């Protein structure tokens, strides 16, 4: 996947400029000008799912370990943040968040152990155990939800150093900051030796072992780092977005959703995780709005919803046939078409 030339290579100097503009738009213009709907219903869930997809992409896309347990680690992150906040109120929220990520990482490593013996579909099935076990444990033991009679917990107010994040725009900025920091750290991890080890293990496990890549450490690092990111994404999903947590919200469907995001976005690409998340979150919304506006008077919402599912499904199939490497490959191709003539002209 490294064949595609990056933006920086094509347009020297444009990379830094693009980042500055992007940051100004994301941190400045969007929260100032965007509507509550855009922030609360579109961008915040997009960010949380994108971070989860970055986490899964690390494990599946880079290190080649298939996992169907992502939703379990989302749940661990959400519940761990809640309990840390509740039981150790003296800790600041950001510390809670990091600790919750570490707890998710620890559980991820435990469920990653079978990866030493199992591969492919067999490993995927064994990660299902995480999915079912975590959901069962969170429902079974009332302690996790502070013995709340209905088992559904309310989110604490997000506050960092005395500043509270309550409005949709503030919660969006909070999520965005967390996601940006986590993504940058992930990129550092992938560019270091550990990232090359991941790819070596994915491409040829035996060869990797022969040239001295420590398999045990590499695989467990992949599981740990991936679960760490997904755990933080879970905390964002629960506290910045929904502001309530229930175990049923972290079911197998959610795990599949995250897997689809990275497949559609493009495996082994961080940008792919974001594109895939945008597609999965935003596209059905646009389609549903368009459907309701055009045909709302003719059919009831149930019929519309079903036809949207069919449209999304067909599009996904069509698109994976046209470009099996996902949205990111399509994107890069578009970029080349636009940027290369410009680059040639500049030289």
């Amino acid at each position, binding site marked *: 996947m490294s064949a595609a030339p990056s933006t920086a290579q094509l347009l020297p100097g444009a990379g830094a400029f*693009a980042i500055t*503009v*992007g940051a100004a*738009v994301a941190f400045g213009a969007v929260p100032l000008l*965007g*509507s*509550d*709907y*855009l922030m*609360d*219903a*579109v961008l915040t*869930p997009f960010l949380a799912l994108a971070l989860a997809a970055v986490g899964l992409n690390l494990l599946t896309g880079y290190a080649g370990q298939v996992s169907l347990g992502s939703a379990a680690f989302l749940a661990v992150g959400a519940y761990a943040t809640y309990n840390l906040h509740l039981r150790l109120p003296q800790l600041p929220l950001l510390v809670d968040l990091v600790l919750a990520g570490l707890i998710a990482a620890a559980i991820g490593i435990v469920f990653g152990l079978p990866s030493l013996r199992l591969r492919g579909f067999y490993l995927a099935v064994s990660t299902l155990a995480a999915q079912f076990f975590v959901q*069962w444990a969170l*429902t079974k033991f*009332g302690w996790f*939800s502070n013995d709340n*009679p*209905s*088992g*559904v917990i*309310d*989110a604490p107010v997000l506050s960092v150093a005395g500043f509270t994040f309550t409005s*949709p725009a503030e919660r969006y900025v909070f999520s965005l900051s967390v996601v940006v920091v986590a993504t940058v750290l992930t990129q550092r991890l992938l560019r270091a030796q550990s990232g090359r080890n991941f790819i070596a293990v994915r491409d040829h496990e035996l060869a990797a072992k022969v040239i001295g890549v420590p398999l045990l450490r590499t695989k467990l690092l992949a599981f740990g780092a991936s679960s760490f990111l997904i755990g933080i994404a879970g905390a964002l999903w629960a506290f910045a*977005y*929904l*502001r*309530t947590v*229930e*175990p*049923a*919200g972290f079911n197998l469907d959610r795990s599949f959703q995250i897997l689809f995001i990275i497949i559609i976005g493009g495996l082994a690409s961080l940008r792919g995780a974001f594109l895939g998340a945008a597609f999965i979150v*935003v596209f059905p*919304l*646009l389609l*549903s*709005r368009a459907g*309701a*506006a055009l045909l709302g008077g003719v059919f*009831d*919402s*149930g019929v*519309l*919803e*079903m036809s949207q599912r069919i449209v999304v499904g067909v599009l996904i199939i069509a698109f994976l046939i046209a470009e099996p490497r996902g949205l990111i490959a399509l994107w890069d191709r*578009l*970029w080349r078409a*636009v940027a290369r003539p410009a680059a040639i002209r500049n030289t």
Partner: protein
Amino acid sequence: MIKSRYLRFAFAAAVASVLATASAARADEQFFPLQSYRVGPYAAGGTGFFGGFIDYLNLINIRDGGVNGVKLTWDEGETQYEVERGVEVYERLKGRPGVAAWNPLSVGIAYAMIDRITKDKVPLITINHGRTDSTDGRVFPYVFPLLLNPYSETSGIVNYIASREGGVDRLKDKKIVVLYHGSPYGKETIPIYKLLADKYQFSLEQIEVPHPGNEQQSQWLSIRRAKPDYVVLRGWGVMNPVALKTAQKVGFPADHIIGNVWSNSEEDVIPAGDAAKGYIAITTQASGEQYPVLQEVIKTVYGAGKGNLDDKKRIGSVYHNLGIVNGILNVEAIRIAQAKFGKRTLTGDEVRWGFEHLQLDPARVEALGAKDLFHSINVTWDNHEGDGRVTFQQWDGGKWKVVSGWIAPDWAFLRPIIEKSAAAYAKEHGIKVRSSGDDPVSN
């Protein structure tokens, strides 16, 4: 740059659609945003409930020209019973002018909305379900678990069993098994059954059925060994018919199984076929279409071709009638609020005042054409449930038949538990507890 152009296009499309929808409403309309679910595993409940609700709103519009001339409008957003879709629909529709109240009929969505509606000052109605402690209006000014919260349901079921046995003192040494769905919903009433067992000295066993509940052989074998006098079925979805069929297999009589409010619909019994004959379930609203208000819906709304249910056989079913009753309560709250604030489009906070004064005695219920459909309601600023009565109906193989009078749960016994829980919530969230109905609502 392509990226920004795409983004700009997406933003523009999103913003434009919000604006387009916002400009559609006119003065003197009261808007109901509906987070309905017509697709997915709970579609049977969603189509019935929202169908009934819309049918009643249509009846008011067609027959009366709205509430005192204020037309009722609504728009649906499909949630599939999923919390994040419910939140999306909330954010999409909350900006419409004249939002009266939210009626999600989903515990998960309701929980996610509590902070949001409190901030936006619009009532949230969770008829027959929802968060039990939101009954305490001192702490939850905008949340209304109308007619029946889960604790009252528990108490109502135990009182019904007592009435069948000939009084609460006869409960002593009886044995009751509660078969509950392995979910937060299913587990919510565990402590209340324990409390009632201590109070009335009956022996109690609570058995969990893991979600989704399509295999219950071992649970029913335990029940057979325990030889209980009654089994309370606290089920959900496919768990209900499977429970009834398995009960028949192990020879437990259906007329000693009592279902709760989420185990009381046609969809719960018809798949069980013969095994459901004789099964009894609690309800706040009787089923059937013999009530005058239902007759008017059939004549006026379905007669004009504006009925919401595709299958007319479902008129008068449990969920459809729940939707009708929900419609009556919402419309009457608006009418009561209009009497105070004027016959115009009301704000969410004014509608809240209406709900806090929603007092319909049996005479008023009869005037509304709903005698025997539901009993009465008496909501006050600090009691947001409103002392709803329950009744019990038995499935005869083709339809539900009412087999009890209107039974009152033991509200006085439950209130301190509710207040304790609400106080804990207030403390956790730094909410100032209101000391009278006229207190300005702060959050």
